[in-house]
């Protein structure tokens, strides 16, 4: 999801219809036609302006208000919401959980997926490569709600298969209420998210690896270069751009997490698995503190904006040529 600058090129000026008479005032006619042409982009521009950009600006305004949505009363409180946010331990806990989410996802969904893709593409059977890529992707096709509910049951102490599996392997000491304890809840959710998302990343890395010309590997093979060196000397450098983009997409996603936390714990127990998204939701819709929720939303916006700018920088860089 990148905006490539080099790819942009101006549209060709409209060519006059073959049989049309020359207009009396070419410049004026051209300008009028140009404005009429705006109808092509008008629906998209209007939709985005009203339902994406306007709310963004409004949100900033709301973050300076104390606002009770039920009574509708709004009072200007200056930076009070931000002061409260920076003094709120749950805000910092949420930020920490989002960061954990990002770090663990980079390890598994970027680097893990890259190694996995290299393993798959190294298989000799084309059929098995296709089957494995598809099978790993299946959890990404189902919704995070279904995946979240499914793992809620898997982690469930009485009927869940995780504790049952640990018991059967003689690891009964490790069984616990994974989502019911403050020190395990967020990790259990993150683990589910890795299960759900790694296939998507693996698929993208596979596509990137397939674009590397096979002559490079053949030449290396002939020179007696082993599979490990081939991975580090050829695959890794040539998918570097994809790796950078995947890191940004993954981190950006990690700071927008909402669905799975909401479904599995709602941020509990005792706010231990709260993330910015769920804390924003709870502040606004449960605690009726909309101004504060808007301040949390601004924090999410700043983080995602910084990441987007970095992403833009990476995708603007010249690509590896071969």
């Amino acid at each position, binding site marked *: 999801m990148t*905006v490539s600058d080099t*790819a942009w*090129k101006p*549209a*060709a*000026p409209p060519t006059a*219809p*073959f049989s049309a008479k020359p207009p009396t005032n070419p410049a004026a006619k051209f300008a009028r036609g*140009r404005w009429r*042409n*705006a109808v*092509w*982009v008008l629906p*998209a*521009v209007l*939709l985005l*302006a*009203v*339902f*994406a950009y306007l*709310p*963004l600006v*409004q*949100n900033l305004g*709301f973050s300076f208000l104390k606002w009770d949505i039920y009574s509708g009363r709004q009072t200007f409180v200056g930076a009070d919401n931000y002061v409260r946010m920076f003094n709120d331990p749950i805000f910092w806990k949420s930020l920490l959980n989002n960061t954990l989410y990002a770090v663990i996802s980079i390890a598994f969904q970027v680097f893990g997926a890259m190694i996995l893709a290299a*393993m798959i593409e190294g298989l000799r059977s084309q059929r098995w490569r296709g089957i*494995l890529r*598809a*099978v*790993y992707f*299946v*959890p990404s*096709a*189902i*919704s*995070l*709600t*279904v995946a979240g*509910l*499914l793992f809620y*049951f898997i982690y469930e102490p009485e*009927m*869940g*298969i995780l504790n049952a599996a640990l018991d059967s392997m003689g690891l009964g000491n490790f069984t616990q209420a994974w989502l019911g304890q403050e020190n395990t809840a967020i990790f259990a959710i993150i683990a589910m998210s890795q299960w759900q998302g790694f296939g998507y990343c693996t*698929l993208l890395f596979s*596509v990137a690896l397939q674009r590397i010309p096979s002559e490079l590997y053949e030449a290396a093979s002939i020179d007696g270069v082993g599979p490990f060196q081939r991975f580090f000397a050829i695959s890794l450098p040539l998918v570097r751009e994809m790796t950078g*983009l995947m890191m940004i997409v993954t981190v*950006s996603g990690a700071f927008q997490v*909402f669905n799975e936390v*909401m479904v599995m714990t709602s941020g509990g127990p005792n706010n231990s698995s709260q993330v*910015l*998204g769920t804390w*924003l939701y709870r502040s606004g*819709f449960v605690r009726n503190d909309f101004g504060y*929720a*808007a301040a949390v*939303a*601004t924090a999410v916006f700043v983080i*995602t904006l910084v990441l*987007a700018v970095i992403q833009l920088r990476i995708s603007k860089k010249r690509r590896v040529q071969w």
Partner: protein
Amino acid sequence: MVTRSAVLLVLGRVLVKAFLLALAVVVIYPLLWMLLNGVKSNSELFSNPFALPVAWKWDNYVTAWNRGVGDYLTTSVLVTVASTIATVFISAWAAYGLTRVNIPFNRVVLVLILGGLMLAPTVALIPLVKMFQSLGLYNNLWALLILYTAFRVPFTTFLIRAYMMDLPTEVDEAASVDGASKARAFWQVILPMCKPILVSTVLLNILFTWNEYLFAMVFTSGGALQTLPVGLTNLMSKHGTDYPVVFAGMAIAAIPVIVLFFAGQRYFIRGLADGVGK
């Protein structure tokens, strides 16, 4: 003579294959467990979680359907179809305008539309609630249709635009020599040529809309108006003790998109790859 490195290489291959297969089991088993639990009885669920169902209770699916899953599914299909059609058409028009028509402020429009890729729905959530309340569209499917379309147009336009840029300009020239208007050139020449990327964007939008949770949860509250993801969490909290029915509902929500993925795999992969790599 078998060298040491040759032995290591073979051993390595075997280990890699074993690892990949084990991972496939880790991925598939939870889904299989979900499907099997959907046809068990509640007591079977608790007695031995790994056992196969004794009597296959297919009527759990009927129960799930009658407890609201049928309504949720209808709503999901309706919202998904409507917003996918709206998104793809609006995006294709915008992509055409950006690549092949002389429009005012071309560069600004491009940045405005593609800049939408960076916007997180959570950031806009609070003002959107207020906006839709004052529009009288709160707890109304129009809210979901509008929001899904607005938030999916940037990515969809991005994909279609990249594809249209690769189409040769001779095509347009040929069309304009024929005296075709811009609109006719779009509908009769350019759009049919974009079919592969249109299929990709349709599939990706279906996947997104079918699975979306945040907007669906916040902007609908009435039973029949809810989409599957929100409806499932309701099914869980309302009939929390009848777990096999919940599993059946989850399977009903998951199976259509899994089937769709396998049916349109090629187009999915193309769309996903172009979306990140291009």
